[in-house]
């Protein structure tokens, strides 16, 4: 006997939904979406679609016509090993930046947590590099890290011995140094995000931990760190995405050297574009697209899930 009533209700609901959609259409017209989607479509999505086409052509600076060549570009990039080298360097670089930027930022945030005058001043000082261009920061560190540069001079002064470390000339460790420079530039941003996260922790939670006799370290590990999950998500995701797509810092410090050991994907793209090999550059750009796709979505998804569990 309930059937007719239910049906009537459902019909009513459906009518309501239709009505509200119609009302939405007049109160929030879809044509307002047009300018934004036109710009996005033409200047962001269309070049991305082009990536999928021109990676399979012989587009270059040396001839006027463009022909399809199938997977030839991929084959040549795989054949000379540059694809895997660039992929490996980019991945290691991004992981190092993601970790260092967060560790530095969190350390600074914890150190500058209390609202004293000294701390407020320090926060401003550490935010200055965020405002400078990565190019400028890169040049400063290129000068600092020369074999006869200021860093080695200071180390020599402290240790009392001659120090001639080639910070930017080592085929193994220079990648770490460049990741450090990039993290130095951005740690101020991570710091203020963590500071904002620390501010959201309720005072009574901390009070409870204190009453239970928790040490500062335990309070951090068991209370603050878990509650900082959203800040960690934001910081790690932006650091990872930023450095997968990184160029300026690497270009200004090493330009990909020594012996191509710091040649991230965008440096490679920049260089072969300069040689006029546009199709190969496009192919690498497509590789970067897939690398981000494969890496970013799972990482962001995992970090988000971690937030919910906690």
């Amino acid at each position, binding site marked *: 006997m309930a059937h007719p009533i239910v049906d009537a209700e459902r019909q009513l609901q459906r009518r309501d939904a239709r009505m509200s959609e119609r009302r939405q259409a007049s109160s*929030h017209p879809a044509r307002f979406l047009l300018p*934004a989607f036109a*710009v996005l479509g033409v200047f962001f999505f269309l070049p*991305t679609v082009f990536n999928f086409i021109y990676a399979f052509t012989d587009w270059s600076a040396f001839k006027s016509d463009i022909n399809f060549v199938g997977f030839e570009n991929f084959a040549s990039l795989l054949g000379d090993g540059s694809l895997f080298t660039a992929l490996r360097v980019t991945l290691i670089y991004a992981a190092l930046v993601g970790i260092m930027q967060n560790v530095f930022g969190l350390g600074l945030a914890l150190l500058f947590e209390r609202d004293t005058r000294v701390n407020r001043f320090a926060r401003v000082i550490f935010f200055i590099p965020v*405002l400078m261009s990565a190019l400028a920061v890169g040049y400063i560190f290129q000068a600092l890290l020369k074999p006869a540069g200021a860093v080695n001079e200071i180390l020599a002064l402290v240790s009392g011995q001659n120090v001639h470390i080639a910070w930017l000339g080592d085929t193994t460790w220079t990648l770490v140094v460049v990741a450090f420079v990039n993290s130095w530039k951005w740690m101020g941003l991570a710091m203020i995000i963590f500071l904002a996260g620390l501010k959201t922790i309720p005072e009574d939670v901390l009070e409870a931990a204190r009453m239970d006799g928790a040490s500062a370290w335990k309070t951090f590990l068991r209370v603050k760190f878990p509650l900082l999950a959203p800040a960690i998500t934001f910081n790690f995701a932006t650091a990872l995405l930023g450095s997968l797509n990184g160029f300026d810092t690497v270009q200004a410090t090493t330009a990909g050297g020594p012996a191509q050991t710091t040649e991230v994907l965008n440096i490679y793209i920049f260089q072969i574009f300069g040689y006029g090999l546009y199709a190969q550059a496009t192919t690498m750009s497509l590789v970067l697209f897939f690398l981000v796709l494969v890496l970013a979505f799972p990482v962001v998804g995992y970090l988000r899930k971690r937030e919910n569990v906690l």
Partner: protein
Amino acid sequence: MSTTTLRPSQPVRSGAAGAARSSRRKAGAWHRLIQPLLVAALCAVVVGIPLWLALITSAKSQGEANLPDLSMPTQWHLLDNYQRAFSEGEVWRGLFGSLLVMVPSVVGVILFGSLAAWILARRSGRLAAVLYAAAISGLILPPAVVTIVLLLRQLGLASTPVGMIFIYMGMYMSIVIFFITGFVRTIPIELEEAARIDGARPVRIFFTIILPLLRPVIATATILVCLYIWNDVFYAFFVLGGGSTTTLQLNLFQIASSNLYQNNWNLIFAYVVISSLPLLVVFIFAQRKIISGITGGAVK
């Protein structure tokens, strides 16, 4: 971290009163003395030394700047270097170009972005959800930098500021829509409905009711987009390269690239200082707003 206040009147709860008191005294010494000293030292070493190197090298002669170090210049060439940076590095042309591409990009992306964000936040249904996902996909996806050049050539916009403006707008539209849509959802719809009953049309409602309410989030988005565009050199190189428009960062890149033939660290660092100064000055005056703006958008 409020192990903070030493309040002698506060009764000590635990039995081990002495231990608690001594650990508090230790905490007191840490907060009063050690922590501020540590912070000052950290500022001086970690940020101070790199900035000092740039500043002091920009005041040296070319010969002395050949091997940049932290020492004072034996002869000051401050004015000389900055004058050369202005003439050889074309500071005015770079500044003009930077503003020429940044201002329209930011205005355009904020206006178009908030218009779209309002609709996306208010419309329900699957289509709106799909469109929103597409609109914010640029948060993650990298721009296709090589084929951007090809597209702009086909459109006749290669090496022009107009092309650069549209590329920046496309790149940062996602960030703007993401921030603003989230904010619009917190605005009660009743505010709009009252105006609608009074007969206001959507355009009017958007410009007189919604847009003014978006001020804080628009500030956040503007700061971020300005920061990215002002400091960008990668996309500017691909898009503007070979044209007559240049930016401060492109000029810096040019000067430093000619470093291969002559060591001109004094000029490079003079240019570093000049190109960093505008944002730093803005930051000094609007420090609180900028920091709270950025964090307000990031941690919800």
